[in-house]
């Protein structure tokens, strides 16, 4: 029975390898993807348009800002769906409990190490978020690192310890606030006479040039993304590790 599944797999594989013959040469600068006017425009004009050295950030938050906004919405919806699916489901039912669950005091060495490490991780998360314009990084990465610091708290002590700092309602509010911040910047540029997410119009309220307005608006947008990703990543962990009961250790 199992070999039947090999038929579609091998068929797909054959087709893909057949197509691989026609792919451009490895690392060819003249390949269609690399020589397209869109990519060249991004590489050539990012510096002029936005003064952001990291082209990926500029394309992510500015040129393709609409796309990123709804990617953030997708993350938000996924987080809310996880909360909704697992809410109230984790009734403790007798023998179904797993046997590796131990009720132990938090380990002294672990908790003290985490106590030292978590502030560093959080500062690093802010650095990644804010420095994403000139180095690899940005809202998504910074948000995930920030969420990981809360997960580390929950792992070292237990979930309640982390939920004191970041409760689930707070998670949802912060996640929504991130999207509202993103959309708000978009609407603000609309109010100022531009189009949705046309950050250059923000120069009217910011004491900077048009290019630098885009630069700073991108930072705001990344902060919004960071908010959403941070809280949704933590909410994912909190719900999945406790089957929606939101208490106890792992």
């Amino acid at each position: 029975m199992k070999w039947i599944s090999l038929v579609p797999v091998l068929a797909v594989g054959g087709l893909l390898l057949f197509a691989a013959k026609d792919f451009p040469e490895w690392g060819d600068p003249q390949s269609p993807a690399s020589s397209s006017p869109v990519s060249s425009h991004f590489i050539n004009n990012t510096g002029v348009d936005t003064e952001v050295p990291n082209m990926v950030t500029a394309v992510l938050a500015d040129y393709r800002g609409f796309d990123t906004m709804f990617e953030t919405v997708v993350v938000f919806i996924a987080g809310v769906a996880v909360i909704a699916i697992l809410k109230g489901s984790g009734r403790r039912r007798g023998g179904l409990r797993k046997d590796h669950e131990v009720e132990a005091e938090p380990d002294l060495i672990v908790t003290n190490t985490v106590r030292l490490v978590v502030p560093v991780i959080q500062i690093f998360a802010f650095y990644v978020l804010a420095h994403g314009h000139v180095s690899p990084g940005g809202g998504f990465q910074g948000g995930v690192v920030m969420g990981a610091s809360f997960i580390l708290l929950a792992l070292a002590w237990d979930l309640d310890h982390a939920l004191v700092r970041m409760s689930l309602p707070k998670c949802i509010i912060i996640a929504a606030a991130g999207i509202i911040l993103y959309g708000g910047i978009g609407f603000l540029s609309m109010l100022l006479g531009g189009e949705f997410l046309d950050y250059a119009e923000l120069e009217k309220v910011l004491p900077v040039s048009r290019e630098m307005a885009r630069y700073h608006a991108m930072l705001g947008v990344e902060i919004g993304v960071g908010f959403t990703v941070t809280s949704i990543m933590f909410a994912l962990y909190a719900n999945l590790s406790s089957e929606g009961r939101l208490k106890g250790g792992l």
Partner: protein
Amino acid sequence: MFEDGTVLNELLVERLNYFIYVVLLLIGLHAMIAKKNLIKKLIGMSIFQTAIILFYVSISVKEDATIPIYKPEHDPHGEHTYAQNLDVNSSNSEMGAGHGPVALQSAETAQYANPLPHVLMLTAIVVGVATLGLALALCQRIYQGYGTIEEDELLNKIERADARTSLSPLAKAKSSRKLSNRNSRKSVLEETGKEKTKGVASMRATTGSKQKSSAPKRKAIANPSQAKPRKPVAQKPSGKKPGGSSKPNKGSA
């Protein structure tokens, strides 16, 4: 075998990235189709996803190109830019019209990797983990309902739950009204009655209560998956093994 021009050389030496991307994609696809465990399926799905991302990133590579972050000489805030501007108009270099970087020429474009596929894939990764979390939540919910995440056991249980719910609502609906005036139903009813006595006692208790009020009846019909796990719970005191909710069922099957 690996001389220039042969197909193998093409695939394995010059385009190893493309080859490996296809292999990884097939591994993921095969896992999604053939593996019975839902978590294994999800791992396969993630491998499939990373394979596609690998393909996109491979496309963006350029020979002798650097990462898509401006080098110092092209950096809009680099010293280089300001130094040039100071030469042009030294008085108002900060806000002057001549300020700022210039667009790159096409020769310089080739120095940077293509940023567009990177952007597309960056968001895909984050959305990927969010959807993975959603799928895992569904897995947990399935495990709570059925006590297993193996696909074949799951199908067995669903079939049996379906069989039971398709019999018992029939039995209770017909038995309350048409028992007296339809003789042809009798044989069916006897069967279901036998099934009921053989089956769970709690089931009969719920059917009894259902005849009194309509609200619990609707609930029981609407989600058989909810009614199902009640059985292992009822059996739990007799079978003392923890975590083995599926075992009593398997034994009785």
